[in-house]
């Protein structure tokens, strides 16, 4: 009984709470940045894979396809390890930032790069699904109005495609938040890593001088609850969007 109370007493320590919350912040920022850059890269990849089909431009289609398939069929952790060795870091990262040491800032940059590359391949396939859902008549209509292919993409096709894939993209945010925990393998920055770090030094905080099973339950329980609250609220948003769309009368286009 006393060990359980001792474990919970750790949560009254403001330093520990702050440490955990900082991890939550990093997790969210990493995931949001990864998805944002992923949407940018993924949209380019998706358009190249979908529309560079004629003549010489076909080589770009092949490059995009190979990129997407390679990243989709290998584990994220492999890319994190690869980026740790091969990813160059720009010079301005050679400073202490966000309460991280110089080494940690570099690690964060490299691991986040891996996450971005990995996520962009997944998002590329999502965007491609969205692009395919736009009826072909839209292209012809755009052409007949004198739009060029870039204008058609930016003004006509992409807005419709994005609208169709908003729920899937939000689900991808959930996946990316979960995937960001893989960064715990290489650096102590985000929530998952900080929870592990806390567990290994719990003996210094819980007053019993050793790590007990109850510490595992309390610390990992807290992390579980945090992840769950964030992801579950996101998935509720996804579901409400899908429900609303299912109710809307579907515009049937006869081909």
């Amino acid at each position, binding site marked *: 009984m006393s060990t359980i109370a001792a474990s919970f007493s750790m949560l009254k320590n403001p330093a520990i709470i702050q440490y955990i919350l900082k991890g939550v912040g990093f997790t969210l920022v990493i995931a949001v940045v990864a998805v944002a850059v992923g949407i940018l890269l993924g949209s380019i990849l998706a358009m190249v894979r979908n529309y560079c089909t004629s003549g010489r431009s076909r080589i770009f289609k092949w490059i995009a396809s190979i990129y997407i398939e390679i990243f989709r069929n290998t584990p994220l952790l492999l890319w994190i390890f690869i980026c740790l060795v091969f990813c160059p870091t720009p010079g301005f990262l050679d400073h202490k930032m966000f309460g991280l040491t110089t080494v940690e800032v570099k690690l964060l940059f490299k691991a986040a790069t891996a996450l971005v590359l990995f996520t962009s391949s997944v998002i590329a396939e999502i965007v491609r699904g969205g692009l395919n859902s736009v009826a072909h008549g839209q292209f012809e209509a755009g052409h007949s109005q004198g739009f060029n292919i870039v204008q058609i993409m930016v003004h006509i096709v992409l807005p419709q495609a994005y609208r169709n894939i908003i729920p899937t993209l939000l689900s991808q945010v959930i996946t990316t938040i979960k995937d960001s925990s893989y960064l715990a393998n290489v650096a102590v920055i985000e929530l998952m890593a900080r929870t592990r770090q806390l567990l290994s030094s719990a003996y210094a905080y819980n007053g019993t001088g050793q790590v007990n099973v109850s510490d595992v339950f309390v610390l990992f329980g807290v*992390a579980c609850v945090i992840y769950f609250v964030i992801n579950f609220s996101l998935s509720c948003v996804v579901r409400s969007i899908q429900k609303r769309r299912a109710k809307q009368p579907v515009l049937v286009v006869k081909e």
Partner: protein
Amino acid sequence: MSGLLSADAWAKVWTYRSTFLLGLLNTVETALFALILAFALGILFGLMATCGSKILRGIARVYVELIQNTPLLLQLCFLYYALAFAGKSLGILVTGIIALGVYTGAYMSEVIRAGIQSIPKGQFEAAHSQGFHYGGMMYHIILPQSIKIILPPMVNQVVNLIKNTSCLYIVGGADLISLTYSFVTGANTGGAYAPAYLVSGLLFFIICFPLSNLASKWENSLKMREKERAVAAAAAAEG
């Protein structure tokens, strides 16, 4: 990147080829046992999520939401450390199989639930009216029809499962990624980064690419057939 062309580095990888094969074997073994567990859990909770009892549906819902909304790595660490500090450690491999199986099982159960719910209600009523009991109805009427909807996403989950075996690294597992990493950082073997990562990535790709390719081809042909059927139905209605 220069290591990619260094003969020395490649020779090192070739000398220690058994490390990579062992890693591959461990990864496949872990994935296989986890898959069996995931199937069992997926079928159980998928059926629970579509049955009449509110309590069973609730339990299935809680399982799926709890597992899908927390990271696999956290679940694995939770299980591993809880067992370790309680002095009842099951070993990394068994812990990994349980964690991966339970995680993938949640996704499998959603896939199966969606497959069963895609069958029109009339089929269930017709089966009941023919005197089928629950097991007979599911086995003879519902599952054969939903299997083609279930299979493509299920294959995708298998691909994810194989990639997810890399999570074992955090507790010191012996899967392909972990062994690759200890190979490139080892005292005697270290340094051959590019060839080692290439080999390990290639091994994953060789297993995963055919599977995910199969799944997407399958899915596309299903969609095409549905479209054709819808067009045919519309034409028939216009008559």
